[in-house]
């Protein structure tokens, strides 16, 4: 057994480094039990997310300058980016939900980016986190649809532009796809984050082997660049899908 372990370690290096260890939720101040209120590394990195968002959007805009400083123009860029997205996708009446979508977007983008710092913890790589956000969006949008349109919201599933015989079949498909939304919505984000970070760790493990370490380090660099892009794109995708779902709730008629 012991020799097997060593052999495996030499073959893959997978036993020296554990690519999934970075995702373990640990209490911050010792102890083993993770109660719901225990301050953990989740708490710490979510706190950093709040700090980073505050630094950018509150401290950065402190000057309220007509000609903005660099940080302020980044903050304005983020504001304009999400605002335009909500307006374009959800329509004019979707603008009043802009702060919620901005909250989700800023949280995800900063959690993703902070997760790229070596030794950090990526809160958005956890399905528990993304599922809660996706379910919140799903429930909000569904309830909103029924509140605004009553039973008329069900027309979302009854595609009036399709030929009549096809409609029941399409309705079944539409209902299934509607309920799959929160699943894909959450797993897409968590999966992307987890996979990217795990891949970096795997390459990092290979870096310990002298022969292939240059290749490994090159690969880490490349993956890191890709992950930076993915971090942003996933936040964008999450936000824009939220806008699309919101549009469905506001205008269920196709």
């Amino acid at each position, binding site marked *: 057994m012991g020799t097997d372990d060593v052999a495996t370690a030499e073959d893959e290096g997978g036993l020296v480094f554990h690519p999934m260890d970075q995702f373990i939720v640990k209490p911050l101040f010792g102890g083993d039990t993770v109660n719901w209120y225990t301050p953990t590394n*989740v708490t710490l990195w979510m706190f950093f997310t709040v700090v980073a968002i505050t630094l950018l*959007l509150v401290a950065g805009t402190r000057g309220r300058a007509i000609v903005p400083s660099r940080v302020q123009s980044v903050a304005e860029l983020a504001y304009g980016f999400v605002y335009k997205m909500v307006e374009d996708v959800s329509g004019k009446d979707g603008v009043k939900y802009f*702060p*919620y979508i901005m909250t989700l977007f*800023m949280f995800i983008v900063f959690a993703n980016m902070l997760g790229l710092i070596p030794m950090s913890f990526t*809160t958005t790589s956890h399905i528990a986190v993304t599922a*809660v956000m996706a379910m919140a969006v799903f429930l909000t949008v569904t309830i909103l649809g029924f509140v605004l349109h009553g039973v008329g919201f069900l027309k979302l599933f009854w595609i009036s532009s399709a030929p009549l015989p096809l409609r029941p079949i399409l309705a079944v498909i539409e209902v299934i796809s509607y309920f799959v939304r929160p699943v894909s919505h959450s797993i897409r984000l968590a999966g992307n984050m987890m996979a990217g970070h795990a891949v970096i760790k795997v390459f990092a493990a290979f870096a310990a082997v002298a022969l292939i370490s240059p290749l490994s380090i090159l690969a880490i660099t490349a993956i890191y660049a890709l992950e930076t892009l993915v971090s942003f794109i996933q936040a964008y995708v999450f936000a824009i899908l939220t806008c699309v779902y919101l549009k469905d709730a506001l205008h269920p008629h196709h």
Partner: protein
Amino acid sequence: MATETESHGDEAAHGGADAAHGGAEAVGMPQLDFATFPNQIFWLVVTLVVIYLILSRVALPRIAAVLAERQGAITNDIAAAEDLKLKAEEAEAAYNQALADARAEAQKIIAEAKAEMQAELDAATAKADAEIAAKAAESEKAIAEIRAGAMQSVEEVAKATAAEIVAAMGGKSDAKAIDAAIAAQLKG
């Protein structure tokens, strides 16, 4: 085997590749360790609420205000620029008008000066003409007088000469006959 797993503790438990650690599945994929879910969900909700409050109370109104203010400033500046442009055009028009006025004034002054000079010239010419005419008339009168005096002298000389010639011939000079004869000669 089982005891070995326990003795290895955490270190071995993380070796997901080893089939012997079937029980360590939750650790192999920390995302599926349901024991940590309440903790994550609690802190997530806290975080999202805090971010939402910060954004909706402070950050977003401030950025919206800044953007609106900038838009207003740009609009104002464009309006001011239009205004200034209009003023510049007006000023140019006024300048051109003034230039045209000045030209017209200059033309007028030149014309007046010319007319004045012409009038003076005409007056001077007329006066000179008049003086010349007067002098000519005077001269003619003098010439006429001189001619008349000469005629009279000729007549007297002729009478005296005729009387002398008649006396020399031995005739008796008849004054009346001589006068008549000379008058007749002079007329002829």
